[in-house]
C-alpha cells in the first residue's frame, strides 16, 4: 500500500533526524552517580504493606514512597506499596494486605470512617498498624499505634500567620481538587489566621485551565496581593498567571518538588510550607520495624508532627541539593 510505505519512510526520516540532532546542553546527567548502598540490619526479612490514597501521578507521593523505600532497604523489609484514591478501594487494599498475612501495615487515613473496618480486622489478627499523612483526628480511637504527619489545619494557620507578618492585604487559596478533606482543611486554616482569604477551585487535571482561572481571578479582584497554592506544580503555574494578569501578587505554596527550588531561589515563589513527606514515609516503615523487633512506640500516644516548617530564600540552599536528588 502506497500510504503505509509513505508513512514508514516519514517515520524513518524522523528517527534519523532525531538521532542526528542532539542537544549538547541540559538533559539527563551524563555521568552516572555511584549508588550509595548503605549497610542493612541483620533482623529477619519481613513484609510490610503500605496503603495510601495517592492520586496517581502527583509528585508529592514520590517523596513519601522514596522515604518508605529507603527505610525498607535499611531494615531488611520487603515493602508492598499500593494505592487508590477512592476510600472503599483503599480499604479493600488494606484487607488484601491483612489476608496475605503481612507483618505490619502503614496506612493513610484520608477518610477514616471508610477505613475503620479493615484497620480493625488487621488489629484482630495481631498485625500492628501505623498511620501517616492523614487521619490525625481518628487514628488513636481506631487502635492505630502511631501517627506521623502534619495537621492540614495547623499548617494552614501557620501559612496565614506568615501572610499577616508579610503585610498581605488579601489572599486567594487555590484548591486543585474540590472537596479534598486535607486541602480544604489547609485553606480553612489559612482563613482562620488570615481572614481576608478567598478560596478558588481549579481543575487540577488541566494546567491551562488552572492558569486561566487564576488569571481571571486576579483580573476580577485586583486587590489580591497573595496567591497561596496547595501543591508545587500549581504554585509554578500561579506564577505564570500572576504575570499574565499584570498583577503584583506574591505566590506562596504548600509542599515542594525539584522545580520549586529554583522558583524560590529566584524569588518567583516566596515560601513553601514543608510537611517533609520523605520523613513521613520513612518513619511509617521504620516505626513498624522498631515495634516488631523491639516493641518500641514513637510519640508516646501523641501524633508525631513532621511539619509545618517553612522553606524560603533563607534556607533553600541547604535543601536544594536534596530536592534535586528527588528526596525533599
Amino acid at each position, binding site marked *: 500500500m502506497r500510504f503505509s510505505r509513505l508513512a514508514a519512510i516519514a*517515520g524513518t526520516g*524522523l528517527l534519523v533526524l532525531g538521532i542526528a540532532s542532539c542537544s549538547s546542553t541540559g*538533559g539527563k546527567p551524563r555521568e552516572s552517580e555511584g549508588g550509595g548502598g548503605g549497610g542493612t540490619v541483620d533482623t529477619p526479612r519481613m513484609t510490610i504493606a503500605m496503603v495510601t490514597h495517592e492520586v*496517581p*501521578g502527583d509528585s508529592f507521593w514520590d517523596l513519601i514512597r522514596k522515604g518508605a523505600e529507603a527505610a525498607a532497604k535499611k531494615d531488611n523489609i520487603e515493602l508492598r506499596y499500593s494505592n487508590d484514591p477512592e476510600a472503599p478501594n483503599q480499604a479493600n487494599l488494606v484487607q488484601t494486605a491483612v489476608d496475605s498475612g503481612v507483618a505490619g501495615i502503614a496506612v493513610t487515613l484520608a477518610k477514616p470512617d471508610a477505613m475503620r473496618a479493615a484497620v480493625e480486622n488487621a488489629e484482630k489478627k495481631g498485625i500492628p498498624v501505623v498511620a501517616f499523612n492523614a487521619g490525625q483526628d481518628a487514628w488513636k480511637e481506631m487502635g492505630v499505634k502511631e501517627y506521623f504527619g502534619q495537621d492540614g489545619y495547623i499548617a494552614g494557620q501557620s501559612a496565614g500567620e506568615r501572610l499577616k507578618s508579610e503585610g498581605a492585604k488579601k489572599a486567594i487559596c487555590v484548591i486543585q481538587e474540590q472537596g479534598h478533606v486535607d486541602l480544604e482543611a489547609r485553606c480553612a486554616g489559612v482563613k482562620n489566621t488570615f481572614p481576608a482569604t478567598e478560596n478558588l477551585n481549579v481543575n487540577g487535571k488541566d494546567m*491551562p485551565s488552572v492558569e486561566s482561572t487564576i*488569571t481571571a481571578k486576579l483580573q476580577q479582584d485586583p486587590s489580591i496581593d497573595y496567591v497561596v497554592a496547595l501543591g508545587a506544580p500549581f504554585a509554578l503555574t500561579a506564577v505564570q498567571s500572576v504575570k499574565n494578569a499584570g498583577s503584583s501578587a506574591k505566590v506562596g505554596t504548600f509542599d515542594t518538588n*525539584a522545580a520549586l527550588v529554583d522558583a524560590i531561589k529566584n524569588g518567583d515563589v516566596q515560601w513553601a510550607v514543608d510537611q517533609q513527606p520523605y520523613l513521613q514515609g520513612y518513619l511509617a516503615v521504620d516505626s513498624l520495624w522498631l515495634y516488631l523487633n523491639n516493641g518500641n512506640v514513637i510519640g508516646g500516644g501523641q501524633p508525631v508532627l513532621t511539619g509545618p516548617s517553612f522553606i524560603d530564600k533563607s534556607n533553600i540552599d541547604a535543601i536544594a541539593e536534596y530536592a534535586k536528588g528527588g528526596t525533599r
Partner: protein
Amino acid sequence: MSTGTTVDLSERKVVHDERVKERNKLQRLVIRPEMGALIGAVVIFIFFLVVAPPFRGPDALATVLYGSSTIGIMACAVALLMIGGEFDLSAGVAVTTSSLAGSMLAWNFHLNLWAGAALALVLSLAIGFFNGYLVMRTKIPSFLITLGTLLMLSGANIAVTKLVSGQVATPSVSDMQGWDSARLVFASTLPIFGVQVRITVLWWLLFTAIATYVLFKTRIGNWIFAVGGDQESARAVGVPVTRVKIGLFMYVGFSAWFLGMHLLFSYNTVQSGQGVGQEFIYIIAAVIGGCLLTGGYGTAIGAAIGAFIFGMVQQGIVYAGWEPDWFKFFMGVMLLFAVIANNAFRNYAAKR
C-alpha cells in the same frame, strides 16, 4: 398514434410543492448546525458582560480565549472524528502522553527538543493509527476500543515516567537546545492591539479554518460526512471508509501532539497524571457546537464555538466572583442551557 401534436410549453405552469421549496438565504443560515451554539454563546457572553464588570476588558477576553483555545484545538479534531461517526476517549490522556514522550525522549537521549517533538509526533500519530486500525479491523465500537487505550495510556504515562526519571513529573528541559525556538512556536505570547494574546488562540483559529475548508470544500470532507452518516452505503459508492476513519483518528493524534507540545513548552515539567477526564470536555464542546453523537452531522466552527462557551463559562464564573463551592454547579447549569438552546433552535429551524 399521433406524434404531431405540439405541446405549448409557454402556457404550462411549474408546480411548486413543499418538497422542492426554495429556501431563502436567512433560512439557509439558521439551519446551519452551529447556529444554536452561536446564539447560546452570544447570550452567555452578554450575560457575563452584564453581571461581571471585570469581564468587559480586552485582557479578560484574552484570558477566556486562551482557556478556550486549549480545549478548542482538541475539540476541532474530536468534532471531525464524531462527524465521521467515531469517538476517541483516549484524547485527553494522549495529550499528556505526547508531552511526556517529547520531554523524556529529548532529556534521556540528549536530543534537541525539536527532535524530541518530532518523535512525540510519530508516537501520537501511531496511537491514532492504532485506535483507528483496531476499530476498523475488529468492528468493535470505538467507545470500547479507545476506553482501553485511555486506561493503557494513563497507566503507561505514570509507569514510564517513573522508570525514566525516577519521579512522577518529568525533569526540567528549559536548559536544552531548541527550547527557545520551540517555545516561540508552541507557547509564546503576542501583543495584538496592546493585549497579550497567547499563540494557541491563533493556532486554534487556523486549525478550525483548515478543518472547515476540508469539510465543506474538498472530497475528503464529503467522505467524512459519508462514513459518519452510513458506513456501508459510503463503502458501496466507493468511499475508502477504512482510510478515512484511520485518518481521522490520526488527526486527533496530531492535535493531541500539538496541545501536548504547548503544555511542555509552557510549563517545562509535565505531571504524568494530567489529562484524565479532559476527553469528555472535548466531546462536550463538539456536542454543544452541534455535532450529533450519532455521527454524520456537525461542523468544525461549531466545535470552536462550543470550546469558546466552555472557556467563557469556566472563567466567567470567576470574573463574576461567585461562591467557588458552587463553581461546578454553575458550570453545569450554563452548559445545560447552551445544549438546550442549541437543540430547541435546531428543532425550530428544521420545521421551517
